[in-house]
């Protein structure tokens, strides 16, 4: 079943748009990401799937260059940029934007200040006007303390924060988690907008079906390793695979 990863070469340079080569990452002493490799072409929307504790969030955090888990081996390339040598803020400055799970809206700051925070460091993405245009709900509440927003609005704000930065690769961690179905619809609308913009995205989501509907590719993680790499459709069509690794 282990599909061989085929390097999808970028036509111009001969290297992939985003390439992960055998990364190993640790939380303290515990070995979480155990040699993950894959390549992504520009414009791909990739669903990173797997059971609880399979290492999805850890992989995403490693790609975003979080301090934890600690990357001990392996390389991450964004074009010819060695992402594995960067720190979190440098990764963001080079275009990798990470929307964390739980939204992480900063307490004590207004909606607008939360957005402004995204536009401190260069390069910037959408100006605030454009964001407010796209998210009128946020425009209404711009002076409100960010943490007083509803869960869905907070998720909007979190995505908007990413859009306010220059995006080459978007990492979305559990965007639908803990949201009522009505609100999930709204977030789905935003994510499909992102898809239309052609932003390369890796999405981690418990709700695999929702993620696979958006994605064109799927990666399945188990025990810290990639066990499947193929099209999103092939996962939806393969009940055995879903049963074994995704329990759906």
């Amino acid at each position, binding site marked *: 079943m282990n599909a061989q990863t085929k390097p999808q070469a970028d036509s111009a340079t001969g290297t992939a748009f985003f390439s992960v080569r055998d990364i190993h990452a640790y939380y303290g002493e515990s070995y979480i990401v155990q040699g993950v490799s894959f390549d992504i072409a520009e414009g791909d929307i990739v669903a990173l799937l797997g059971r609880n504790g399979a290492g999805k969030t850890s992989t995403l955090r490693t790609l*975003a260059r*979080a*301090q934890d888990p600690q990357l001990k081996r392996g390389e991450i390339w964004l074009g010819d940029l060695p992402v594995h040598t960067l*720190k*979190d*803020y440098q990764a*963001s*400055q080079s275009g990798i*934007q*990470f929307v*964390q799970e739980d939204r*992480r809206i*900063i*307490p*004590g*700051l207004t909606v607008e*200040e939360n957005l*402004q*925070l*995204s536009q*401190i*460091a*260069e390069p910037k993405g959408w100006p605030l006007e454009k964001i407010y245009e796209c998210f009128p709900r946020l425009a209404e509440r711009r002076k409100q303390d960010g943490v007083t927003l509803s869960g869905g609005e907070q998720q909007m704000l979190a995505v908007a*924060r990413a859009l306010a*930065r220059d995006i080459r690769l978007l990492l979305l961690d559990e965007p639908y988690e803990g949201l009522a179905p009505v609100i999930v619809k709204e977030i789905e609308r935003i994510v499909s907008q992102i898809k239309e913009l052609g932003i390369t995205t890796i999405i981690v989501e418990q709700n695999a079906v929702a993620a696979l509907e958006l994605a064109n590719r799927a990666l399945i993680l188990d025990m810290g390793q990639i066990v499947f790499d193929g099209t999103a459709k092939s996962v939806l069509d393969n009940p055995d695979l879903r049963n074994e690794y995704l329990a759906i």
Partner: protein
Amino acid sequence: MDQLILQLLNGLDKGAAYALIALGLTLVFGTLGIVNFAHGALFMIGAFCAVVFSRLLQLETVTIDPARLTPWGSPMEVRTPLVQAWLGDFGAVLVQWSVPLSILFAIPVMLIVGVAMERGLIRYFYKRAHADQILVTFGLAIVLQEIVKANFGANPIPVTAPAALAGSVDVGGWLGLSGVFYPWWRLVYLGFALAVMGLVIAFLRFTTYGMVVRAGMEDRQTVGFLGIDIEKRFTVVFGIAAVVAGIAGAMYTPIVSPNYHIGMDFLVLSFVVVVVGGMGSVSGAVFAGFLLGILQSFASMNEVKNILPGIDQVIIYLVAVVVLLVMPRGLMGRKGVMEN
């Protein structure tokens, strides 16, 4: 009535000193998560900035006069002050005003000291246990003290306020009472402290830089994912904390003669102030500083001491215990900060 006003002023003055030290301490807690036992040493270095500055202004050329002898028979030295020789009367004015002017000298010095301390040592301890932080900063504090002691001796060094601000002023006159006199310099110190605290709070509250710092205090990781090098900004915050402690020390010299130990004497108290105010809360530290200062002053009144002997010596700790038992995170503490 007069007594109450005077004690209130005393308390405000004391509180101003406590609050200024606690302010920097709590900023460093809140941003870097560091328990900085060397913070008192920064106050001490600031105080010695004032000493050094006034000595620089009073640099002298020394010539030997063989015609005159010291009591133990060696030739007498004749000293001519340099700055006065160059600048005449203006030099004398500079010497007069050396304490307030020393702030200009202390700010760059403290900034350098603070940034060097953070980059050179503290940053390796962000992720270490608080116990390790305590040990290393305590060690640093001792080393800094001993360096000062080796150069300036252990005796307190008298530093004078400008003559124009050395006497007392009739505060009662302003309030329509008679005969309430209070030293000028202490009022200056109070005003200075309020100004510094106002500046720091305004900086955090109303500038974009301050907004980023506040965001970093809440969630440094998210701020990092938004492309901001928060460590660099925290280094600057550490520098600011050092400057605040330093100029607080420099301006305090006419009130308490500085010696190498002055910072350690304030350290424990300022920790109590920070905790009573609530860890990481700047306004809490300011409020608690004034509160404890005022309570201490009133507890020292003979009328109070006659009823409760020794209360002036324990009041601060007593208040700390009561506050912490009633309000688990101090007066204005945030949830989850430094609770484990």
